[in-house]
């Protein structure tokens, strides 16, 4: 009997939850705000769905009823990707050690 590919995806999902659990517990509390902004940025990888949706129009028709939602989602996700990564970078650049280490 063949295994439904859904089961493989479910396995990836469950294992990733565990990976996430251990990785996030090791994040230092002082970096919890950058953690939130970077998770925000990476969850915008949903843009891959938006791109597929936007390019789904048939030949010659760029804006169909379904591709319009894709284009809107591209804008939203792009705001998040650029905004999320850049603001995280800006924050992380501020975390400095004492100038003179004892």
């Amino acid at each position, binding site marked *: 009997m063949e295994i439904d590919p859904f089961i493989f995806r479910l396995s990836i999902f469950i294992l990733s939850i565990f990976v996430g659990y251990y990785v996030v517990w090791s994040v230092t509390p002082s970096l919890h705000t950058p953690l939130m902004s970077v998770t925000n940025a990476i969850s915008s990888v949903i843009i891959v769905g938006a791109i597929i949706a936007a390019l789904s129009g048939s030949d010659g028709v760029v804006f169909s009823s379904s591709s319009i939602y894709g284009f809107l989602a591209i804008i939203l996700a792009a*705001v998040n990707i650029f905004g999320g990564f850049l603001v995280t970078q800006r924050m992380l650049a501020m975390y400095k050690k004492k100038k003179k280490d004892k």
Partner: protein
Amino acid sequence: MSANLSAILYLVSGVLFILALRGLSSPETSRQGNLFGIIGMVIAVTVTFLSVGNFSSGFIYVLIFLAIGGSIGAFIAYRIPMTAMPELVAGFHSLVGLAAVFVAISAFINPAAFNLGTPGNIKLASLIEMAIGAAVGAITFSGSVIAFLKLQGIMSGAPITFKGQHLLNALLLILIVILTIYLCSTQSSNLFWILIAVSFLIGFLIIIPIGGADMPVVISMLNSYSGWAAAGIGFTLENTALIITGALVGSSGAILSYIMCKGMNRSFFNVILGGFGATDQTTGGQSKEQRPVKSGNADDAAFLMKNASSVIIVPGYGMAVAQAQHALREMVDTLKKNDIKVSYAIHPVAGRMPGHMNVLLAEANVPYDEVFELEEINNDFANADVAFVIGANDVTNPVAKTDPQSPIYGMPVLDVEKCKSVLFVKRSLSPGYAGIDNDLFYKENTLMLFADAKKMTEDITKNL
């Protein structure tokens, strides 16, 4: 590009996202982590373009829209003040939520583009995944919008409660399940629209009863939801990168919510059911008798600090509101010149989001190795000469340790009262968010400094 190759590359970008979070375990590795995240995103987007392989006029539009969104995002990222970070994150969550809804709608209208069947005849599993992605996305969107409005001060931070609220929410949740079941059997687009509308309503209803100081939990929770929404869409699109990321973000938000709840000694459900602070304010007024308070000015404060050998600073949300972090750093610089040891004590729920105070201090150029978490520093208060409380309140209240009747009893607090003397900067004697009086105000060794946090800090620096 072959389906197998693109699947492997999506996996690579998922792994890079894991490394991005892993980097945050210390500030030194964090910048490299962020770079991994960016590379992962570039890979995911490029692979998508190559696997769709449609470089017609639509492709140009995709690039244009990408550029529009990207410039808006970059503009916001560079302009936003660090004190507004909670609002920004809430706003960004709403965008992820709405994007998930849009992708789900598009997949529902044109399932063929996603290999999910034909309209009216979508694969059952895909339909369920789509419905979950759309519902969670919609809840994330409207919930985050309310959180944003509350944080921004456009909407009052006070909890909005009404009779039958919880019953209504429960009924709506059941309605969503029923709608999903009917949607699966009928494939009706009307049901799909109703499902999304009801989800928007739920997101709105579950956030309005939650008060301003519970925002750290709310933001973390919405962070988690945005992850689950992404994972739901990931299953629909059969995309590994999206599934991995959704799971990572979902568990990250859940852990942060847990840490925040623990910081307040409250259960998650207690926070979610909301209304905290609204009911307690009436009972809080019972001890009306005036207790004596010692108040002082900047001169007194400067005198105390000059004669101290160690000072612990306790910042809170009030510091963010007064934008006092730079003035505070200048004061500390002056103290250090006088060979006074200074450290900072951060309570887990200080501010409006996890790690809020740390970012503000980092912005003011405070080295991160002078900043300590509650467990690391709590024993040091007994040996310190002066505690300088600036903009914090409930997190220093000794009542949490002594009075089992108090609504905040059992909450971990900073042992500020053990210091030889306590300087408490506050605008008035008004109770904090929990609506209860802070015993610390009336202690023998407490000196109240009634002023705006920024102005007081500047005045102290002048007097040092």
